[in-house]
């Protein structure tokens, strides 16, 4: 029982990371209709940056904040390359992001090498019903819940959120009322970058990161996001948590080497069920 509880909580923590990566995919897809395959790289860049900044003597908190901001900036740059040229189709932009994701490997290895990196998170641990759990998992879960609440408020209650939705829902009408559709797309890439960065910053203390961690992250994030049709943050959170727990249970009771397989299985199942229910992915409200 205590082992199960431990897997559950670690699964929820890791799942929050997937949900954050997935929510970055959702924000970008909602606004630009681009599936951003460079999404995992944001997490890797932010995590690596934290390890460097901490090494340079920056205190915890500040280092993480800088790294998330950096990931947001990287997101903006990826957006500029992917959709900056007017008239780029979402399909073409998708391939561009895939290319950038691979190109990012080279830069990451150049700067940080190819060895795994990690850094300390929230110290200490606690016992819950006989299960020993690192306190850092609670930080991951609390921060993720806050971010998802903030995102719900952004999309449902603010004019910028409405404009982000409007730019995707009807680009022509958006231009008629004076919304700069390209700028909204770039904003979504910056937001997506920051969300991916946050995922990397939060989960690295419990799961070390290498330059190619982005594959697991983007596959898992996509699996989480596809549950919400790539457009709904709340379902993405649910998908991420489900996936994290499923992976933790498989790792605990079977083997730790099935991480990606569990994600792919969940993704395929959801996609097959959805394909049976409706012909294509459609626009959905938050």
């Amino acid at each position, binding site marked *: 029982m205590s082992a199960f509880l431990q897997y559950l909580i670690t699964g929820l923590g890791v799942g929050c990371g997937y949900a954050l990566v997935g929510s970055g995919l959702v924000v970008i897809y909602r606004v630009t209709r681009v599936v951003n395959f460079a999404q995992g790289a944001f997490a890797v860049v932010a995590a690596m940056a934290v390890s460097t900044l901490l090494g340079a003597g920056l205190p915890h908190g500040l280092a993480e904040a800088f790294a998330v901001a950096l990931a947001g900036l990287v997101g903006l740059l990826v957006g500029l390359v992917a959709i900056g040229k007017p008239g780029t189709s979402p399909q073409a932009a998708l391939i561009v992001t895939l290319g950038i994701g691979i190109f990012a490997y080279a830069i990451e290895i150049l700067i940080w090498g190819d060895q795994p990196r990690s850094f300390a998170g929230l110290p200490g641990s606690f016992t819950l019903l006989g299960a020993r759990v690192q306190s850092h998992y609670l930080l991951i879960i609390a921060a993720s819940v806050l971010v998802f609440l903030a995102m719900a408020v952004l999309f449902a209650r603010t*004019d910028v959120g*409405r*404009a982000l*939705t*409007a730019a995707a*829902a*009807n680009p*022509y*009408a*958006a*231009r*008629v*009322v*004076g*919304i700069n559709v390209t700028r909204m797309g770039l904003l979504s890439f910056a937001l997506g970058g920051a969300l991916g960065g946050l995922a990397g910053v939060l989960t690295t203390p419990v799961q070390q990161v290498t330059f190619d961690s982005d594959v697991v992250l983007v596959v898992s994030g996509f699996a989480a996001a596809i549950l919400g049709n790539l457009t709904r943050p709340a379902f993405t959170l649910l998908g991420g948590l489900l996936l994290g727990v499923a992976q933790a249970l498989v790792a605990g009771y079977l083997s730790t080497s099935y991480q990606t397989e569990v994600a792919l299985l969940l993704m395929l199942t959801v996609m097959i069920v959805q394909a049976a229910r409706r012909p294509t992915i459609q*626009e*959905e*409200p938050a």
Partner: protein
Amino acid sequence: MSGRVVDVRKLTVRYGAAVALDEVDLHVEAGELVALIGPNGAGKSTLVNTLSGILKPAGGSVSVVGRLAHVPEGRQMFASLTVDDNLRLGAWRIRDRNTARVYELLPGLVRVRDNRAGLLSGGQQQMVALGRALMSRPQVLVIDEMSLGLAPLVVAELAAHLRALNSQDGLAVLLIEQNARLALELCSRAYVLEAGRVVAHGPSAQIAASPAVAAAYLGGGPG
């Protein structure tokens, strides 16, 4: 108020090699109702999209005094957003996003304010599109194909709203219509656009009386 709120001179717009508008001259005085009629493909929507800044002219000039709001062809709702959110986005260019005034002007929208715009009838959507344009407190309103696909009763209601906005607030309107009879009745002056050129312009009564216009646009068929 006096003077021209819209002044278009020798406007040329091209799509690649194709000329959509060829040296078009057109103006709208402050507080004036002006009709622009013409067949499909004459360049009416091109002119509207150039006025609202979505298309760039290849030649000539477009000058707009004050704020111009655009009710696009096909109503162009943000389908997944509520009516209220659609209205608020209409004020994206300005700071004041209070919707109360528009609900006062178009009371029919109050009942559906929390409904998703995509689920409304065509007439209701056209009302939302009008309200969305009014949110930016324009001095001139450009309406592209207001009556297309709408029931006569709804069209009459929209026309009544336009008359009221024009007489009470001094709003200038450029009305693009396939329904020439409606447009000439509502507006005091009219332009006829064919194949990218203005082929006739003048007071509505004079345009309506011209045999060529009568034959092409006011003949037999329903409106």
